């Protein structure tokens, strides 16, 4: 499996606060990678750096060996959501079509071939039923599907998703994860998806990048989600428990519980 994306020693501080410190990991082609970390830890910042929307203070990001530029069609991006008024006359279909030519200047109607491709894409994500509804009127889950179609239609090699599961109900979470898994398989696309909860992704993740305290550990779930690795990352002892097939990361009593994903303010003594 060839290396698609290399994140090498990336560091950044925002507003005077250090956010990421020498973060490095690789993504191979076709791999499904989860970027896991609690809110505020810098996942969105990291994604934006990869996309080229933000310059890091140190380190470099390479795609297929070469530095990335935003104009490269190799990356697709699905932001968490788009705030759109229901009055804005952009239908789901229009937004997906913009995935093909939204960056092009000039006139020109869309060809029949392009319109067919839009139909196919809408079908693949299961959005045919609301294809003609205005994007601003769609529910969170429906909007996600449309945004995914918009990103995938230009056939990128790597799809980046920023917290797509955050505001969805559990059933929609399962549906979107399954959809992404099959899309990745069918289209040969690698996926990097950020989330603050890893359990929904355990069945489909090939690799995990676990971020906390500005640092990251990457590898397979078996390699990373272990007490010794995570304790080193957190800087204090944490235990990793498996309960009914779900993973829980818990801190010792008395330790700072602040920012551990999958873990309410619960300690087991």
């Amino acid at each position, binding site marked *: 499996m060839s290396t698609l994306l290399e994140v090498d020693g990336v560091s950044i501080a925002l507003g005077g606060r250090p956010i990421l410190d020498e973060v490095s990991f690789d993504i191979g082609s076709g791999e499904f990678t989860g970027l896991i970390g609690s809110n505020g830890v810098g996942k969105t910042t990291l994604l934006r750096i990869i996309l080229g*929307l933000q310059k890091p203070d140190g380190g470099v990001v390479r795609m297929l060996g070469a530095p990335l530029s*935003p104009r490269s069609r190799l990356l697709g991006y699905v932001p968490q959501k788009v705030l759109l008024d229901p009055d804005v*006359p952009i239908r789901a279909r229009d937004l997906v079509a*913009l995935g093909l030519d*939204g960056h092009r200047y000039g006139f020109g109607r869309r060809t029949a071939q392009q319109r067919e491709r839009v139909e196919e894409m809408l079908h693949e994500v299961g959005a045919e039923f609301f294809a003609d509804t205005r994007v601003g009127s769609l529910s969170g889950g429906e909007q996600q599907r449309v945004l995914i179609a918009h990103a995938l239609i230009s056939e990128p090699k790597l799809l980046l998703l920023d917290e797509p599961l955050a505001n969805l109900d559990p059933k929609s979470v399962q549906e979107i994860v399954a959809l992404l898994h099959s899309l990745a398989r069918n289209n040969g696309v690698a996926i990097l998806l950020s989330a603050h909860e890893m359990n929904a992704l355990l069945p489909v993740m090939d690799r995990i990048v676990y971020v906390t305290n500005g640092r990251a550990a990457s590898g397979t779930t078996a390699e990373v989600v272990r007490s010794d690795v995570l304790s080193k990352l957190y800087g204090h002892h944490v235990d990793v428990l498996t309960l009914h097939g779900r993973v829980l990361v818990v801190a010792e009593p008395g330790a700072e519980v602040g920012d551990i994903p999958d873990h309410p303010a619960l300690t087991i003594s």
Partner: protein
Amino acid sequence: MHLFFEPGLFSSGPVRTAAVVGGLTAVVSAVVGLFTVIRSQSFAGHALADVATTGGSGAFLLGLSPLAGFIGGGVIGAGAMDLIGVQRVRNRDVATGIVLGAASGLSALFLYLSTTSSAATGTIQHILFGGIFEIDPSLVPLVVSLSAATVLVVGIIHRPLLLGSVSSDLALARGIGLRTTGLLFMGALAVAVGLSSIAIGSILSTALLIGPPATALRLTRSVRGAMLTACFLGVGTTWLGIALAYDSADWILSSQGLPVSFFIVTIAFASYVAAGLPVIRRQVGS
């Protein structure tokens, strides 16, 4: 001007000029205005109008062409707003308001100076509220070329513009030069405002910029449909306003009649409200 409605109307030179300039202005305003509304930049559009006032009054003070003044003011205002950072939504309204405040202040000064320095009356009236029947016919070719150029520019950038209005992150991730596109659009906006300033006055130009597009958005589903509807509404509103104003000289005992701009604005406003009525909404199925 005191003849019957129909015959007098169509043979009058000033009315013909008014119809041509008004019609072109309406089309440009509809095209640019549609994107203005989609991008929720109505306030910016209105602020540009006030800055255009500054340009127009300054131009008058210096003896320059009012059209140049209006457009020049708009362009400078657009640049200033971009500099202050109109892109970030949170600061946007305040930034726009400040530019507006400074521009209005300057307008006050220029208008004051021009009324005290020259004997010309009705200056304020013309700059602020328009004098479509007093437009110099020699301006028409310029208006035609400016209108064509503006519509062309918007046509060229319309896709990145749309994508940018959905989500700036999506646009940036595709390498769309949002700043360039945004600036080009502001330029088009400045020209649109400038053109409608000579027709219906800088302070009222917003009516043609926002009214027909907002009404069209209530009536149609797609961007293309909204575009056509907006143009149709805009031109219709303008021509009807001209005809009614011409007619109003006969209605009211004072010799002046009501200003054209008043009719145009009222019709635009009434259309918008009418489009929102439940009975219309049910017909359209929205």
